[in-house]
């Protein structure tokens, strides 16, 4: 279940690794673009008919198809879509009749803010819980934390979100039940309104991160260099802070990419549950209204964000791990 500790680098050194790793991003994006384009072609019926409805004449449908470029060959359309995506020329949403770029631009900030609030809550808490249980494997506290973490890991976000909404919002009145602050309010008010949706994103991330932190801590605590540090009389604070934690938490960093993948799924769910105008809600709305061009562009954007973050995480890991950083190139 837990990803094995990655040792991404052989003796060829950091620079070669980073280069190869960076090259992987456009290659994977190309494969993703092929999958997305293939799926977009599978829409039943033709696009013009889907937009104009059953009462339009065949000539009208044909004219709209031509206008949208759906009468051109597949390869041409794929090329136009990919080059358009790369150059930022994303076209209009056929359903909303608005440029896709402005649709996404208006919402991506909201999603990033929500994701940031969730991460600020989840990272310290899960590292603390993970280290606590990893330092004393098998103890009562450890077993309680790991069973709870496992249970949280399996809980769909909308279920945990519903519980939080009902208990914290409706019954206790501690936090507002809508995610959006009244227009014109300051950042503090916006954050206050975002607290409940962000808390709803926490459980899944918490379960996974705390398990990684626990595994890393428990493994490192057994390492000879920790015993050496303890035996040479260093205070426990120094052993923990300077020797144990930096190497114990490295593997946790490598699962950041998995976390981003969970977070993207979680954002779609939580933005839908709290009716919050972010990119996840836009994604789901375009899926439900068959707005395939918007859907395809959002998917590509999310895949690109995901790939870049996991690239940064892997490079960060390589930079932090002395075995890799100091390896001869």
């Amino acid at each position, binding site marked *: 279940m837990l990803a094995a500790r990655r040792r991404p680098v052989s003796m060829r050194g950091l620079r070669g690794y980073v280069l190869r790793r960076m090259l992987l991003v456009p290659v994977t994006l190309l494969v993703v673009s092929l999958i997305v384009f293939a799926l977009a072609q599978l829409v039943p019926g033709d696009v013009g008919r889907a937009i104009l409805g059953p009462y339009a004449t065949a000539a009208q449908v044909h004219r709209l198809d031509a206008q949208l470029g759906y009468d051109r060959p597949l390869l041409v359309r794929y090329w136009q879509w990919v080059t358009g995506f790369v150059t930022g020329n994303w076209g209009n949403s056929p359903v909303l009749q608005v440029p896709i770029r402005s649709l996404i631009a208006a919402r991506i900030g909201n999603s990033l803010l929500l994701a940031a609030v969730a991460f600020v809550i989840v990272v310290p808490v899960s590292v603390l819980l993970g280290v606590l249980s990893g330092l004393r494997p098998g103890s009562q506290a450890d077993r309680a934390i790991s069973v709870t973490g496992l249970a949280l890991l399996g*809980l769909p976000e909308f279920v945990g979100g*519903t519980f939080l909404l009902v208990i914290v919002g409706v019954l206790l009145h501690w936090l507002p039940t809508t995610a959006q602050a009244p227009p014109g309010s300051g950042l503090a008010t916006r954050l206050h309104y975002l607290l409940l949706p962000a808390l709803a994103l926490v459980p899944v991330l918490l379960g996974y991160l705390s398990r990684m932190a626990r595994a890393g801590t428990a493994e490192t605590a057994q390492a000879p260099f920790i015993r050496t540090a303890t035996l040479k009389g260093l205070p426990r604070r120094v052993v923990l802070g300077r020797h144990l934690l930096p190497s114990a938490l490295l593997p946790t960093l490598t699962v950041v990419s998995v976390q981003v993948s969970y977070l993207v*799924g979680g954002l779609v769910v939580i933005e839908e549950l709290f009716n919050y105008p972010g990119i996840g809600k836009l994604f*789901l709305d375009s899926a439900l209204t068959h707005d*395939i061009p918007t859907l395809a562009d959002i998917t590509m954007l999310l895949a690109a964000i995901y790939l870049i973050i996991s690239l940064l995480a892997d490079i960060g890991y390589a930079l932090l791990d002395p075995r890799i950083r100091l390896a001869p190139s």
Partner: protein
Amino acid sequence: MTAIIQADTSAAVAGRARAHGTLRYLLRRPAFVVSAAIALGWVVVAIAWPVLAPYPPDQVHPLHAFGRPSAAHLLGTDWLGRDVLSRTLAGSSSVLVLAPASALLAVAVGTAIGLTAGYYRGTVDMVLMRITDAVVTIPGIILDVLVLASFGRSELVLVLVVAAGFAPLVSRTVRAAVLAERERDYIDAARLRQEPAVYIMVAELLPNVLPPILVELTIRLGYAVFAVATLSFFGLGPQQPSPDWGLTVSLGIQYVQNAPWIVLAPAAAIGSLVVSVTILGDEIRAAVER
């Protein structure tokens, strides 16, 4: 010849004894027993809800809409005056068909891919694993929504798409187990006897990589409940007036201020099912890897 048959039988007996020991170990674990009881309870409800439900789940009663929990309606009534308890019991049947179907299909397809890739290695292996890598790159739920939006909503497509998302992960596990197993002497012997490749894969390799496949099945079952429930919450699964849990939460959430019981009951039902299945999967994994 007799010696070979005897060796085979004793191996089978040893295998059965090991399975027996695993089961005995599991039955002594409180976490396993409790979660197995909850999951089995929901299976019973999914089959027997017509007997258990106090009202027909689709019986509309507009005059009794938004009723608080009471003696007549233990969990209250929803926006159409339907009994929430009856709908929650009946709602178990859709997820308990769709999730196991997806998990079984994913494990079947993933096992076939993993056996083929692990047995042949070389080009077949490389191509299969690269495709697997690409599928894993897109977050699962995004891919599911994309396919369901393109193909149109249907429960069959839902099962297929959830299974397609999980199959690559299963195939990796199976492939790793096959790579270790194919170097054993009995595989060489089977090749010398000129057994066909398919026979070697199914009759020789498969029985010996069964434990990791069973673990994979229980773990995937937990994820399948998660995925199916989330997709029905998106409105991409069963449609109205189905009492499906995810659908009910997504429709009922707008009334949460005045009638929170409408969403609380199905949410608690999904929570108990998914948590028990997840813990069950983890317990079985720990027992098999013991």
